[in-house]
């Protein structure tokens, strides 16, 4: 099943002009990434390091000093300013059609959510106050953030996430045929003997693209998905129903989920670890272990920004922490996740870190994952 660029009833109906604008932003970001950002490390040596040495009488040492030095490089500053502007233009290019078409999208959502005989379900918790470490931040500058909820049948947060995510990903060179769920399914086939779960949990599902893809790939699997935002989950639920797949969506915190112990055969998360702080990530790992059944598998997948070759590369990659609202980007990039999985109780010998090729896109597009298997009872 395609995951990116899928057509369904809750997407905004974009005009030709709006489509052109989104394609122009994709092209701008592709150029900035391929032709300008690619020169940042060289600019560090040519501009940033000499400027720092001239100012301080020694080379930069710590990540903070490397960051200070980068900001002394005209090349880096120009790229950073342009990249921030391009990121904001993503949201303008997708946000205009969303707010313009919102009345129709909300009506479509109502019809799908309230339809008799629908395939999945939606359980919102009015008493849940979305975790501020995620909800209070406009992560990757998404206006209003992941947990913005305007009430009623609001779906803005979910629509922004899916539409903005596509423009972002295509600008990164990620192919339309790539899929994080597809990468995990391939990993299960290659490393876990083609494991097929009877019951699956997707933690931090956002707009539900991966959850729906799993439900489509394994029609006999009962798929559950958790996120913190009501409007995000409304969108994800309506999206899945529109695509004809059943997913059960729940508004819960990843660090304390309301399912019974050992409820799932497979527990996954996609791009969640870099959106939450250390304490919540560790609690999420403990919950993963609690919720997976004996013999079941846990796979947490995320962006491949870990294990940079030098501190200069690491700080260059950390631009998102400082300029893109990705406040936990560096925490994730530098964490000892295997140690955290061990501390959560996973058997050390079962923990494996994976460097995974994308299904489609530029040859160097990779995904990171860490997996573990709970010993059979």
């Amino acid at each position, binding site marked *: 099943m395609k995951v990116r660029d899928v057509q369904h009833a809750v997407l905004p109906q974009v005009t*030709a*002009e709006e489509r*052109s*604008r989104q*394609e*122009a*932003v994709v*092209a*701008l970001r592709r150029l900035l990434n391929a032709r300008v950002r690619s020169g940042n490390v060289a600019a560090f040596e040519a501009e940033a390091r000499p400027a720092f040495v001239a100012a301080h009488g020694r080379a930069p040492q710590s990540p903070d000093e490397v960051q200070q030095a980068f*900001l002394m490089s005209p090349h*880096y*500053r*120009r790229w*950073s*300013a*342009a990249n*921030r*502007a*391009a990121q*904001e*233009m993503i*949201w*303008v*290019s997708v*946000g*205009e*059609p*969303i*707010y*313009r078409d*919102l*009345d129709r999208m909300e009506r479509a959502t109502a019809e799908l959510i309230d339809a008799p005989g629908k395939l999945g379900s939606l359980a919102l918790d009015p008493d849940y106050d979305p975790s501020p470490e995620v909800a*209070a*931040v*406009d992560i990757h*500058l998404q*206006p*209003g*953030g992941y947990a*913005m909820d305007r009430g009623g049948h609001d779906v803005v947060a979910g629509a922004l996430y899916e539409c903005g995510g596509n423009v972002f990903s295509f600008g990164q060179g990620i192919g339309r045929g790539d899929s994080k769920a597809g990468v995990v399914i391939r990993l299960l086939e290659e490393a876990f003997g083609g494991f097929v779960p009877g019951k699956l949990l997707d933690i931090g599902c956002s707009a539900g693209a991966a959850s729906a893809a799993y439900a489509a790939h394994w029609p006999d699997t009962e798929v559950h998905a958790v996120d913190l935002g009501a409007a995000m989950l409304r969108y994800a639920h309506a999206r899945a129903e529109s695509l004809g797949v059943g997913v059960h969506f729940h508004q819960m915190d990843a660090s304390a989920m309301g399912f019974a112990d050992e409820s799932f055969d497979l527990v996954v998360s996609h791009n969640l670890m870099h959106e939450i702080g250390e304490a919540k990530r560790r609690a999420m790992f403990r919950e993963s272990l609690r919720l997976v059944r004996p013999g079941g598998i846990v796979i947490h997948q995320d962006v491949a920004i870990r294990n940079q070759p030098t501190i200069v590369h690491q700080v260059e990659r950390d631009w998102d922490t*400082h*300029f893109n*609202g990705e406040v936990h980007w560096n925490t994730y990039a530098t964490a000892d996740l295997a140690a955290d999985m061990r501390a959560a109780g996973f058997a050390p010998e079962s923990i494996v870190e994976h460097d995974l090729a994308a299904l489609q896109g530029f040859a160097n597009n990779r995904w990171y994952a860490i997996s573990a298997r709970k010993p059979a009872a």
Partner: protein
Amino acid sequence: MSGRVEALTALIASARGERKQSLESREAEEVLNVALALTVELAVSNDRIDRLERLVAELRGEPVEELRDIRYEGDVARERSEATDALLTRALRILLDPRAQAAE
């Protein structure tokens, strides 16, 4: 809501947090943002012109390359050249401004 300005205003108003700048001058960074936004709008217009050229070529029953390669001479050429000069004069007005920089 259905208006484009209304939609854009709602989106812009929903952004939170501080905006960290990269360039030394806030004014320069804001001008860069305007220039990049206009570049995107130019791409949108080019896309529209390209679509029209292809449709007109199809209606005329000729390859679009032939339509694009139509050359003009005489008065039409002069009119087109003058339009280009005027556009550049408008765009580069600040470089032609005779006034001296005012003291702080």
